[in-house]
């Protein structure tokens, strides 16, 4: 047999099947070929009367199997094709499960989706104590369910309640927890796995059930208790997904219906459900987002690009402290420089509060907290900047001050130190003029709060070098964020598209549409928070300021609303001072609508239906995105969608702003924009020539 995906070896009657031997990528995935080879190998083993046992392992350190190749799922075009695909896989795994000899999977590193489903088909799993070791069934995050028997075997292995938690959230568990929940038999150093395989293969099961486990198991066998478990789970799912995502609900439906059924009918139900889900628009959108994200992680010749080992942050405010946290958390021992002790303490507080939350959630230990927080060097001088590889400036948003800071800092850093600004509103091209050597300068735009927001915009200017962009790209990946590269323009990518959305919300308010109906419409579209709520979060003063910048930079189509200006004058700044469209308590929790803002709104109320509100807000975004592509601010629709999903939480089940526009049909979008142009405002709804051209050529954003 000439295998590409699986190595087969037999020693003293025990078969060893190894994955990933010839895999050049960092992760091994399961392809159709893997399944075929697996099938053949299992037939051979089944036929061997002298076979004593079977061990599955990976040649690749840090990766057992990262699941089914997502492009295979993406290529499925019908429910039947998808179900049949599942059934094929199920057959192979059934064959593995049905072997009369003891079987075991040795897991070192990631063991996800189909990988875990395969391991679950073995009698036992033992895993390494490697930090990378993580087991889980993330299919739900792609809008589907595990289709190779995972929904059948996981509950049998670890009980209904625990498996629901994994199946519905897609969360991954580390070695220690996997042992505790009974998913794996033993945990040991990776180097010992193969050595100990034979011993564990023939060992009797050792997992003693705890009292609690016995209790929950008994409960799930009880018809009434089971009903309660499912009802509770459904409630939690609805709270979390607001009903936008069908997969978790389908999973619940399937588990409840199939509970206690024989394997064959359980699995055929699973395959059918997979087929249905795989063709939903939500799943297609999530698969699209998966690839957007996955592609963003790719960087050519990454290993050859030099890493940042030490960083420095200028300015100790909320952003500066957040960025210092990010560097400290990635072991880059940052220097945090400010001009006074108060500024430094503000930054330290910001960083400490993030670490403290992680400590409370037991993500880090107390020692790690101490070490990481203390790896930040608070400083009033430029001492040590000569050792830094990356400086991120986060001082006050003022061009003159920033220019001064950069021309000063340039004297203290080494020649290959990257210099960046975290400005959100100032011109990078203009700022670059302050530097003698601007080729190592760029914008590095973080979103607030730094610890939570996954996106970082890398902003080019005319004189920036490709090396600088690549090094920054790598750094952003190293600190576990998602980078996009954007050309300089007012608001860059994300804020430039967000601005018309917020601006138009204020116009709706001025027109008499209520705060409640705007926010409700936005939430029902799938955005993470209402538009007015978002303005509070960003700061109404910031919105007002950005509005002015947009108008100055983009002209009449970005004409700023008056409301935010008036609100700022009335002292309503948003969450930061507890008073915005809503009121906030001392801990920042949202309370009722602020009666003071109502005084600024027209007495005459306008009733507007939800879809109209949504379109009033979303269409200007699509229109502006088209302008951005026209101006070549970013290279593709991919980048726009990635930026908006990771930057402002544009609903992933819609696949991104432009994916959504494509799916609605650009002809319709164009018509709606033109309608608003004549009915609402000619300038703000001025159709982008780029969009017009697409429609004329019958093209889509994603067909370029």
């Amino acid at each position, binding site marked *: 047999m000439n295998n590409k995906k699986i190595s087969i070896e037999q020693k003293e009657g025990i078969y060893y099947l190894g994955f990933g031997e010839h895999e050049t990528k960092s992760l091994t995935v399961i392809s159709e070929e893997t399944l075929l080879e697996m099938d053949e190998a299992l037939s051979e083993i089944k036929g061997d009367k002298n076979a004593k046992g079977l061990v599955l392992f990976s040649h690749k350190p840090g990766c057992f199997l990262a699941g089914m190749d997502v492009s295979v799922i993406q290529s499925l075009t019908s429910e039947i094709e998808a179900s049949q695909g599942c059934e094929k896989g199920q057959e192979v795994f059934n064959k593995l499960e049905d072997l009369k000899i003891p079987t075991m999977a040795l897991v070192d590193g990631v063991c996800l989706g189909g990988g875990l489903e395969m391991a679950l088909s073995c009698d036992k799993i033992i895993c390494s104590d490697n930090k990378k070791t993580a087991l889980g069934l993330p299919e739900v995050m792609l809008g589907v369910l595990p289709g190779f028997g995972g929904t059948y075997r996981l509950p049998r292995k670890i009980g209904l309640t625990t498996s629901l938690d994994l199946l519905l959230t897609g969360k991954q568990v580390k070695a220690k927890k996997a042992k505790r929940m009974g998913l794996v038999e033993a945990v040991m150093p990776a180097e010992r796995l193969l050595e100990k395989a034979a011993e564990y293969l023939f060992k009797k099961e050792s997992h003693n059930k705890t009292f609690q486990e016995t209790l929950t198991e008994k409960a799930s066998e009880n018809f009434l208790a089971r009903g309660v478990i499912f009802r509770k789970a459904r409630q939690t799912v609805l709270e979390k997904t607001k009903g936008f995502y069908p997969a978790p609900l389908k999973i619940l439906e399937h588990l409840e219906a199939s509970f206690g059924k024989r394997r064959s009918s359980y699995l055929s139900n699973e395959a059918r459900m997979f087929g249905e889900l795989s063709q939903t628009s939500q799943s297609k959108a999530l698969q699209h987002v998966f690839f957007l994200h996955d592609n963003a992680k790719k960087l050519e010749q990454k290993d050859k690009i030099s890493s940042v080992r030490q960083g420095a942050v200028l300015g100790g405010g909320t952003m500066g402290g957040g960025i210092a946290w990010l560097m400290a958390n990635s072991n880059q021992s940052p220097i945090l420089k400010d001009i006074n*002790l108060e500024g430094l*303490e503000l930054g*330290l507080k910001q960083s*400490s509060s993030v670490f*403290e939350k992680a400590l409370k959630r037991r993500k880090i230990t107390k020692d790690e907290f101490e070490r990481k*927080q*203390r790896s930040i*060097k608070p400083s009033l001088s430029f001492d040590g900047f*000569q*050792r830094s590889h990356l400086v991120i400036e986060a001082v006050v948003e003022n061009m003159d001050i920033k220019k001064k800071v950069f021309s000063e800092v340039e004297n203290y850093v080494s020649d290959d130190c990257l210099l960046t600004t975290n400005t959100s509103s100032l011109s990078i091209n203009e700022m670059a003029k302050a530097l003698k050597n601007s080729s190592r300068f760029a914008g590095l735009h973080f979103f607030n709060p730094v610890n939570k927001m996954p996106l970082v915009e890398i902003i080019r200017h005319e004189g920036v070098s490709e090396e600088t962009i690549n090094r920054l790209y790598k750094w952003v990946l190293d600190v576990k964020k998602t980078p996009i590269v954007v050309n300089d323009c007012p608001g860059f990518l994300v804020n430039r598209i967000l601005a018309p959305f917020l601006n138009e919300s204020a116009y709706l308010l001025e027109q008499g549409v209520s705060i409640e109906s705007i926010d409700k419409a936005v939430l029902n579209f799938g955005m993470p928070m209402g538009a007015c709520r978002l303005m509070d979060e960003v700061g109404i003063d910031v919105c007002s300021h950005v509005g002015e910048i947009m108008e100055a930079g983009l002209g009449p189509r970005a004409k700023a609303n008056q409301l935010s200006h008036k609100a700022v004058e009335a002292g309503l700044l948003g969450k930061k001072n507890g008073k915005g469209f809503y009121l906030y308590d001392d801990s920042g929790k949202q309370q009722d609508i602020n009666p003071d803002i109502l005084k600024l709104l027209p007495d005459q109320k306008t009733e507007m239906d939800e879809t109209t509100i949504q379109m009033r807000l979303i269409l200007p975004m699509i229109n502006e995105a088209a302008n951005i592509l026209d101006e070549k601010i970013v290279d593709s629709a991919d980048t726009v969608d990635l930026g908006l999903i990771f930057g402002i939480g544009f609903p992933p089940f819609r696949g991104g702003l432009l994916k959504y526009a494509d799916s609605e049909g650009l002809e319709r979008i164009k018509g709606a924009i033109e309608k608003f142009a004549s009915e609402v405002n000619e300038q703000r709804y001025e159709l982008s020539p780029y969009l017009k051209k697409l429609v004329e050529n019958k093209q889509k954003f994603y067909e370029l």
Partner: protein
Amino acid sequence: MKPVYLVKGNRSPQAKSGTILKDVAAPYLGHYLIRDIMDQTSIPNDQVDEVIIGNTGNPAKYPNVGRVIALEAGLDKKTSGYTVHRNCASGMEAVSQAFVKIASGRSDIIFAGGVENMSQMPLLYNEDMTDFFIDLMKAKSSTDKMKVLSSFRLPHLSPVISIEQGLTDPFCGLNMGQTAEKLAREFKFSRTQQDEFANNSHHKAVRAQQEGKLKDEIVSIITGKKLDSLISEDNGPRADSSLEKLAKLKPYFEKKTGTVTVGNACPITDGGSMWLLCSEEAVKKYNLEPMARMVDFHFHGLEPERMGLGPVLAMDGVLKRTGMSLDQMDLVEINEAFAAQVLSCLEVMKNKKLSDRWNVDLLGELDQSKLNVNGGAIALGHPVGSTGSRLMVTLAHELGRRKAKYGLASLCIGGGQGGAVIIENLNQ
């Protein structure tokens, strides 16, 4: 011997135990100091030969604080690190070892200093309780266990206070305060004389703080339960110190007839100090501008019950070793463990009969305007493991400010020793 340069020296703020530095574990009183100095130089982090740290209240979690500090400071993993213990002079011992290594040509770049968190010195189980635990572990059957358990008595729980034990001399049985009382009795120093000395120390220190003189030597430290505040000043010096207030305090070590109070003794303190010592080659290679040159050092023993006189013997030793005289010294630091003890030293130095008794040269009367000019340990505190190097830091900065030439730092050492170092200021 090759010349040895004191390139840069700094220290943490010093804080009375149980106050603002109480949560800062010993390594974190030192690692900022190294990082601060490294950042003022271009020395690559893998070019430091060694880190030597003085520490006496060895934290159970960090048996070798020196190595932990080296790593936390971001020095390369290959940097050797160790910890030394010579009681109150541990920091000076660390610097002295660095001196020998560089003078002999073995090493070129060494960080040496001291750290002490006296707030974190533990309470220990007493012997009875320890035996109880051992018996309990040995007991196999449940009847045996019951038997052991029933042997438990409440006094088992009375703790051994490690700091109290550490400050008591195991040889003569006196605690440090009692040795000071002994000197006060023998040299006939009154309570008022001691209080005057202490009062003076506070006012000198407060003046130095007000004039911003200590700022150059202090590196801010992150403190607080949440690690989000910065402290940059010593909290020992009292601006409102007065003889009347000091007079109100009761004797601490000899309750009925004594003269030594917590007011005329140094407080228990947390703090750290650090030096970068380099060879001439390293100075040239990295274009360093050393603050001072370390001329030499000397340690000397004497009877433990009069440990307070240690500085005299050590000063005599280092002066003889270098062929210098006390007159040549522009500034002198004698650590203020106790007012009575410093006063006694000054007495021996100028008294022929007493000098003969301790077999030292008559060093001569010390000009008071040269002694502890920015206050001493009575005001600033005495973090035991750090003080030896801390005195040198304060001395070098003040010599530099005055553009003076030579300075001498000395201190008494619990257990009956003294230590002294002479440095030459290079900041002209």
